[in-house]
């Protein structure tokens, strides 16, 4: 009992200040819908969202779909604030398999063997963390986990120990899952 009580008190110390959900061609920030697109593919939805949000960040167009998803979701809550002490801890289920699959297609046939470095670099799930870090100049703690399902407790526990250690003041935390047309991002900012 005592242990449980202590844990509850400790959990209350953490604050979730902002959150963003992206799924079904819709973006919701702190519970409010902020963008919706009629487009049927993730690619078009991401493009529409980029335009509508007036991001003006040409690197966006070079990103793979997983990075676009994570980047857009992060953009909604990081905004233009100072994030030089904000760590990034993301997770998903499909790792970078969406791009892995595309890359594999480019080397399946010996006759049409065209491995591309621009595609290959995205065959790692943590590249999206790099993209977010570059945009917001976040030289901070970062980690990417692959889990079989969204586990908020695990991510919160991991974020909490980073905050308690003093290695960061905030943590951008969340789930950025994408494989082909199935995607969902749920990211949030945590502070002590």
């Amino acid at each position, binding site marked *: 009992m005592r242990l449980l009580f202590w844990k509850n008190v400790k959990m209350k110390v953490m604050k979730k200040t902002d959150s963003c959900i992206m799924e079904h061609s819709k973006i919701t920030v702190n519970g409010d819908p902020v963008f919706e697109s009629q487009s049927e593919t993730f690619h078009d939805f991401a493009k529409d969202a980029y335009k509508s949000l007036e991001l003006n960040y040409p690197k966006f167009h070079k990103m793979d779909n997983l990075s676009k998803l994570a980047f857009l979701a992060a953009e909604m809550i990081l905004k233009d604030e100072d994030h030089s002490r904000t760590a*990034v801890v993301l997770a998903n*289920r*499909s*790792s970078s*398999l969406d791009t*892995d*699959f595309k*890359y*594999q297609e480019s*080397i*399946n046939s*010996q006759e049409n*063997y065209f*491995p*591309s*470095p621009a595609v*290959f*670099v995205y*065959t*790692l*799930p*943590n*590249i999206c*963390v*790099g*993209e977010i*870090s*570059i945009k*917001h*100049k*976040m*030289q*901070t*703690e*970062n*980690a*990417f*986990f*692959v*889990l*079989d399902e969204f*586990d908020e407790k*695990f991510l919160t*526990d*991991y974020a*909490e*120990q*980073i905050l*308690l*250690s003093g*290695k960061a003041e905030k943590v951008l935390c969340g789930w950025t899952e994408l*494989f082909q047309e199935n995607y969902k991002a749920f990211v949030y900012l945590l502070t002590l």
Partner: protein
Amino acid sequence: MKKEIYITDYNCVTPLGFDVASNWNHLVEGKSGVALHKVIENQEAFYASIIDTEKLEKEFKSNFANPDFTRLEKMFLLSLKPLVEKHEITEETAFILSTTKGNISLLKNQTALPGGAYLSNLAQKIADYFGFKTKPIVVSNACVSGVMAIAVAKNMIQAGKYKDAFVIAGDEVSEFVISGFNSFQAIGTEPCKPYDKNRNGINIGEAAAATYITAAPSENEKFRFKISGDSAINDANHISGPSRTGDGLYASIKNAMTEANVTSEQIDFISAHGTATIYNDEMEAIAFNRMKLQNIPLNSMKGYYGHCLGASGLLESIISMESARHGILIPSKNFEETGVSQPLNIIKENQSAAIQYILKTASGFGGCNAAIVLEKC
């Protein structure tokens, strides 16, 4: 006062042997696993460090009855088995798996995604075999995964979420990875030469490694290394090019050493990343000099094992701890003449040394870096 977390056991499966002792003996003799291998049909051979499949199968058969595992899974199982036999798995034991590509070879010529390609499925399969009770945690953070996995275990045990952890790390040489690094023109045309003037790229390698990490070591352990500090800072600079300032690596080392409460003079040995690409090794030299670590004996293990991606950080940590246990520093293989702009104390031959504090570093795609400080107790 934070709980102290220790590594008290480890094992590895590499081209140089299927246990730590045979690996260590081969390293002391200067043997390398790197050789020319034909990985891709109709293409030139590449220098890579590859486990002999026949030997692996034989070793697997003499240890496991069920043959229904991929080659990589067999490497994982063999690396973990001796540790699971010695340390009990409880409901508070974490299972952490580090990999970049897992069973990526299963994708070849498939029209739909095979279940085995999911990293969580790979981890669950290994976890189920040994009867782990908690959900597996997969760390997939490019080439720093192996170092980061040790840090994750330390931090989650320290935070009271687990009592102990088995951490395994593995990656396999595949056409997928070789063709990709080749498209980047990052693969060396000869056995790789970290930090050397004539270095021209990496050799890919494969290995599996396993460690047991606990807050409560038993009295019977042969050794213990305290995980004294860790950090993993992003360069926030480029997704594939190393930072020219070494910012992320510098900050990672600085944070890890601050947490460990050690100064640069106290570090006895650096097990560096040293991939033998022009820009990575130069970036490391800059970061180490910014930390005033240029006089500390340093090596890269890539000349022996190639770059084992998600396995490299854990494998190299294990070898660095073996160095400390034997009191022998192993040379940075294939290094002849310095090819970085800042001074480094690169180990050129086997030398005896008393090693208490080890600094282990890694850097990778996505701008990630990681550093840990290990203290021999």
